[in-house]
């Protein structure tokens, strides 16, 4: 499966925590090799959907299939990687140690060269021995991306990976990092609050309603890849931003301004 990116299918997927219905039954298919952005109001269940796909939550009904396999099977092959809103770097390990840990967890052979290459790629050259506490928020998020990518996963799940960084850094990360996985055609699900980020990174945007989440808009993003900073000046980009914001329902302007 690692050779070709998988298609992700959610069939009648629902999730409730006790009395709280977080996800109403959803039928969704994420095409192989595509980057899909999930946007919607806070607390609508986007993150839960991502965690269901990652196999970190158990659905109360329905199922997730990743390339025909269950999430737990994909987990065990080390073929998925997830980045959380919090960097979730282990504080007692160095940056390099945290990235290497992913190789070990995914049962991949240790590959110091690849680890250093990724640290360079995410722009953290020279910080390999730094502890997470010594890094800034943006650096920590980049470290997380390095950790996700070092195992060359077939499925990449990003939950607000750049939520904790300032706008300038975020834009730079938005432009630099996606190349690392998009070149390999990794199937990617991205949860984000930022409409502009969604448009910039995704091939497709799903807009969710308030809880329990339903898909209110399914918007293909046909901007050419790879996308450079200039694309944000283009008319199609602005139209897409406006369309997504409308779908979000009035609050779009605020979100777009983020």
């Amino acid at each position, binding site marked *: 499966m690692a050779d070709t990116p998988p298609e992700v299918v959610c069939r009648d997927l629902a999730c409730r925590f006790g009395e709280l219905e977080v996800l109403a039954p959803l039928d969704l298919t994420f095409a192989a090799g595509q980057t899909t952005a999930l946007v919607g109001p806070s607390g609508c269940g986007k993150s839960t959907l991502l965690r269901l796909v990652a196999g*970190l939550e158990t659905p109360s009904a329905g199922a997730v299939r990743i390339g025909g396999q269950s999430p737990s099977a994909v*987990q065990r*092959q*080390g073929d*998925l*990687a997830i980045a*959380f809103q*919090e960097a*979730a770097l282990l504080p007692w390990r160095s940056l390099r140690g945290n990235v290497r840990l992913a190789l070990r967890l995914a049962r991949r052979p240790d590959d110091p060269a690849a680890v250093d290459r990724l640290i360079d790629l995410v722009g953290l050259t020279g910080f390999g021995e730094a502890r997470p*506490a010594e890094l800034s928020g943006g650096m920590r998020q980049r470290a997380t991306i390095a950790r996700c990518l070092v195992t060359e996963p077939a499925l990449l799940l990003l939950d607000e990976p750049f939520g904790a960084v300032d706008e300038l850094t975020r834009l730079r990360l938005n432009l630099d990092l996606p190349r690392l996985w998009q070149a390999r055609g990794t199937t990617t699900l991205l949860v984000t609050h930022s409409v502009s980020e969604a448009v910039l990174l995704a091939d497709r945007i799903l807009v969710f309603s308030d809880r329990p989440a339903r898909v209110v808009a399914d918007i293909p993003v046909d901007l050419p890849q790879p996308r450079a900073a200039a694309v944000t000046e283009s008319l199609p980009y602005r139209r897409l931003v406006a369309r997504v914001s409308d779908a979000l329902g009035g609050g779009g302007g605020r979100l777009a301004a983020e």
Partner: protein
Amino acid sequence: MRGALEAMTRGAGPALASTLGLLLLWQALAMATAGAWILASPLAVLDWAAERAGLLTRATAVTLGAAAQGFLWGNLAAMLLALVSVLVPRSERVLSALSLLAFCLPLVATGPILRVLYGPGTGPQVTLAALACCYTTHVALLVGLRAAPPGWLDLIRSYGRGRVTALLQVRAMAALPYLAAGLQIAAPAAILGAMVGEFTGAERGLGVLILRTLRGLDVAGTWAIGGIAAAAAIAAHAAVGALARRVTRAPPPVILAVAPPRPGRGPLARLAGAAGLILLVLALWWAAMEAAGLPAFFAKRPGDVWAYLATGPAAGLHRAQLLGALGQTLAIALPGYLAGLALGVGIAAALVLAPRVAGVAMPLAIALRSIPILATAPLIVLALGRGAAGGIAIVAAMIFFPTLVACLQGMRQTPAAVTDIFDSYGAPRLTRLIHAQAPAMLPAFFASARMAVPAAILAATTAEWLATGRGLGALMATVASTSDYGMLWSATALIASVAMLAWAGLARIERAVLARAAPEQLS
């Protein structure tokens, strides 16, 4: 090495101040109680010790050797129990109960058995030191092994890795600060355990010497030995603390999690679980004594206790005697327990509000914990009398220390980001304490409250033996001298049952509170 040196020199100022403060307090107390033959002045003590340097060195080596072995085994056992509990969550309830029960066993009942099993030598001392460590470290570790942000565990799970990997990569490291607190609590306990273990007929050691000085009206000797025990405990406490600071340089993680609702167990299932546990304990009790071939004369089996209390002649009389004594014991244990917890939390809070005081107060607290109660009880009796007040004070003095250490450690777990918020508003320390540090401390507080349950009952029986002459403690001392082992084991079983009930009740309160304050502890 350099780090340790730095830590030592950094701690030198407060340490010096605290030593001086302690000595002054000691001298003042000695002068105030002159003529009572219960406290010698520091100079008299020093003089006594200098005259017997060789003897004291040998005795200290023997006792600390046994304490160190017990510390090692007890804490290894605690780690093993905690590991199994985390890897096989179903076993946690049973393992915790067994560890609690082992801690509950009173020395009057276990002493003869240990000595008969081990014969001459340090076996009983090592075992009692290990027993004194195991339960508290176990409880502290259980809390620590859960004190990891869920994101870290999700990371492990997202690679399809299970509990073992989570334990090795995340939980073990996250638990280190809690383990350190546990070891700091265990260090004085091990020393005291080894000393008390010598009461089972040892040839040499500090415990033997203190018995000699107590009977010999040798007040300077008693306090010299108490001082050595306290100094060793303070040193062990400081060494564990320094080691912990070196290992855990990382700031505490932000733990903000949503509690997964735990499937509630019905009353029937709970009842079945409790019944199973009781059966297991009874079976272990019986099997252990049978396997060791211990004579029923002094090693009573569950059946013997049942006959003594339920079916045998005079069973009704025995029950009445036992329950009457239990009532008297609880009348001391319960207020003493609450006072000890309050004292522990109160001092912890005071230390957070006035950190400079910590340097003085901490060694004093350790000293109070590690000087054998045999030496300190007469002081407390002198101050408060032989009535309930004296008994309650002895209980509080014996149990406040774990609470203090655990609560201090718990408050240190307040995420820096949270305290920073309070600092950014220039909030007074008290506000920060109430709104940030106190809630962060709750898991550690409950852990220490659990640790203190059996300790309070044991302390109450000790106080009764030493001061009030009532209750289960006095009853057990009496029946032990008249070979009434039926009553002794009945009292032991009763103490264990009461401790278990209190522990279960506390667990319910704890769940209710933590569900609001620290949900990660419930997963």
